[in-house]
């Protein structure tokens, strides 16, 4: 139940670092050092910077790995090898790609709006990166447990279409513009069912905090069925999954960049590092959205604790396994199905998904008020 003024915040990565430093007995020494200087806040800034650095490195490595994984999976499905030359089984291919992109000429079309054109890829990347902040990677492994975490995620996700529109408009290219308009239409029509299905979960949990949502999913029914919301809200899960794939803009819903129709959609005119930013954002988004699906419906980092291993570590592993399962599903989808048409997608969104999402919310409300759970 929502109490309105929960005072105890869940532990986050900052607390974890402090706890680790305490455990090895150096925290007080360092703290003392900065206290002597009278600049205690510097320590806090340093710890926060460390967290940011770890997050950035994590995101970059994930993106590299995902792009490799996607190509590799694609290859396996299509009975090919995929990248094989650079590194063991082509594992360093993303690095080679990155170097190639760095070395490319950065072209700005003559009639493009220079400033917006340059700004757009960064806006996309930053907005995706911000989604990671309330994402619980494991117990205590969260940058910041915002009390409105879910709302925050949905709100930040809504920035992406704006930046795509910026990119599409500033390119001064008809394909880009059409891609951007499609992306906006698509995002608007899918953020609504996304939010409504998420609210249905919030009705059960009574909190918007992602950590609270995960905690609500720990434990078992009848001793063996994990208390994940996927079992409580199967309809909600399916709707949320579809909406998320649409939100990510992946096949079968990749209209913003549908290459057979719009060449490359909103990033047709981009090259070099700016293109790399879109690329980074795309895979980071894939990971972030999969993480959100896991957090809301698949029990987040919950799982059986193993002896002798700190649960912070096992929970991270559980989270990763689940997230990669969702990513695997998204990639598998891309390998198998064709793309739907834009009007069919919007029909699906407005005429089917939103009514079903509302129905799902209604059911959830009934179940909670009746006190079944």
């Amino acid at each position, binding site marked *: 139940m929502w109490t309105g003024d929960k005072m105890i915040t869940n532990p986050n990565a900052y607390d974890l670092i402090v706890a680790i430093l305490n455990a090895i007995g150096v925290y007080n020494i360092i703290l003392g050092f900065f206290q002597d200087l009278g600049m205690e806040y510097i320590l806090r800034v340093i710890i926060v910077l460390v967290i940011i650095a770890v997050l950035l490195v994590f995101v970059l490595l994930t993106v590299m790995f995902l792009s490799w994984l996607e190509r590799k999976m*694609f290859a396996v*499905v*299509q*009975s*090919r090898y995929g990248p094989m030359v650079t590194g063991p089984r082509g594992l360093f291919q993303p690095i080679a790609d990155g170097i190639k992109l760095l070395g490319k000429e950065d072209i700005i079309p003559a009639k493009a709006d220079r400033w917006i054109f340059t700004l757009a890829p960064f806006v996309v990347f930053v907005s995706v990166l911000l989604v990671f902040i309330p994402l619980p990677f494991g117990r205590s492994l969260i940058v910041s447990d915002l009390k409105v975490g879910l709302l925050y995620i949905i709100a930040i996700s809504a920035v992406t279409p704006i930046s795509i529109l910026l990119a599409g408009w500033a390119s001064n290219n*008809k*394909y880009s513009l*059409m891609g951007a308009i*499609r992306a906006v239409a698509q995002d608007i029509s899918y953020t609504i069912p996304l939010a409504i299905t998420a609210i249905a979960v919030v009705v059960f949990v009574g909190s918007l905090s992602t950590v609270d949502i995960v905690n609500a999913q720990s434990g078992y029914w009848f001793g063996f069925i994990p208390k994940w919301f996927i079992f409580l809200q199967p309809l909600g899960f399916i709707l949320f999954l579809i909406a998320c794939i649409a939100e990510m803009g992946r*096949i*079968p819903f*990749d209209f913003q960049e*549908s*290459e*057979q*129709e*719009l*060449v490359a959609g909103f990033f047709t005119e981009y090259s070099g590092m700016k293109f790399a930013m879109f690329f980074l954002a795309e895979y980071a988004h894939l990971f972030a959205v999969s993480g959100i699906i896991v957090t809301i419906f698949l029990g987040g980092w919950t799982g059986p604790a193993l002896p002798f291993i700190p649960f912070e570590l096992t929970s991270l592993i559980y989270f990763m396994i689940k997230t990669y399962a969702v990513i695997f599903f998204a990639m598998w989808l891309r*390998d*198998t*199905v*064709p*793309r*739907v*048409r*834009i*009007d*069919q997608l919007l029909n699906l969104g407005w005429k089917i998904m939103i009514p079903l999402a509302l129905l799902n919310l209604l059911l959830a409300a009934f179940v909670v008020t009746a006190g079944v759970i």
Partner: protein
Amino acid sequence: METETLLLNMGPVHPSTHGVLRFKLRMDGEIIRDCQVVVGYLHRGTEKLGEMKTYLQFVPYTDRLDYIAAMPNNYSYVKAVEELAGIEVPLRAEYIRVLVMELNRIVNHLVFMGSLLLDLGASTMIMYGFREREKALQLYESLCGARMTFNYIRPGGVREDLPDGFIPKLREFIKDMEKRIPDYEDLINGNEIFLMRMKNIGVINAEEAINSGMTGPSLRGSGVDYDIRKVEPYSIYPDLDFKACMRSECDSLARYLVRVDEMRESLHILEQIADTMPEGKFINQRYGMAPTTGAPTAVMSFFPRIFTPRAGEVYSRIEAPKGELGFYVASDGTTKPYRVKIRSPSFCNLVALPKMVAGLKIPDLIAAFGTIDVVLGDVDR
């Protein structure tokens, strides 16, 4: 609200125009109000070249028309020349010709399926299609040394006899394909999204299709039971058991399904040929080229590389994988054709496209265009 139409120039360099085709689209948002097809970016003056080469020299140029399926091009031209010059062809040569052409039909349809699905955004089928196509291309390679531009069929027969072990390898291919086609159907035909994208898209009724000069599988998808192999049988087709595949839905899905059925029929034909391949000469010894290996050198002198048909003209057509492929050849009694005119299926099938896509959306244009199955080498010649 007042809106204006957007002029969108798709191509000539665009991922899904299958080469260098250009659509001039007048768009109302996503909806196509007017579509104009601009061709000619791959024009190589093949017809003019035909006037400047001898009859035999022109055969390799026909390979470059529809480079996905080059054997029917060879054959169509050679058939016209043979009709004009009254050249007789040994039975074994005819069997080999039909064999290579039907194999090419399968190759063409595999590429068609792959590129259509790629146009729709599903990129796996093209790799599967190319995997099987590779096996067929290896068969071709063992046969004539080339994989795409064969230069194999000659006036009077074919260039070389079947190599040793060709028929067993062919049987292997047939057996493999018979297993693969259901696989493809599993992957594609049952896919709801695929059906959503194809059903009732690019509809053209039989009358309009005929009037717009559509031929081949595209026409048969509109419910016209018309296959030149049946209505004007040539070569050994009268002796073979096969049926012209036809569907009456008139939409993109029908055109696609016709081609899948055709692959089965072609396999059936190949099986029959593999069973009944006669022994004998592979080329009429009065006309055509000497075999490069294995043949007695003495017969070399009997084979004129240059011959002069009587003055006259002929229009001869065959059922190529993409439709009616016709060659008009006029002779003035010299060693070179006076005029060669190519009636290519891709060119004429494109005429109907603007009619098919008016009022649809860009993705539908791509889908409908994909099901017409054009090759730009064939359009622009």
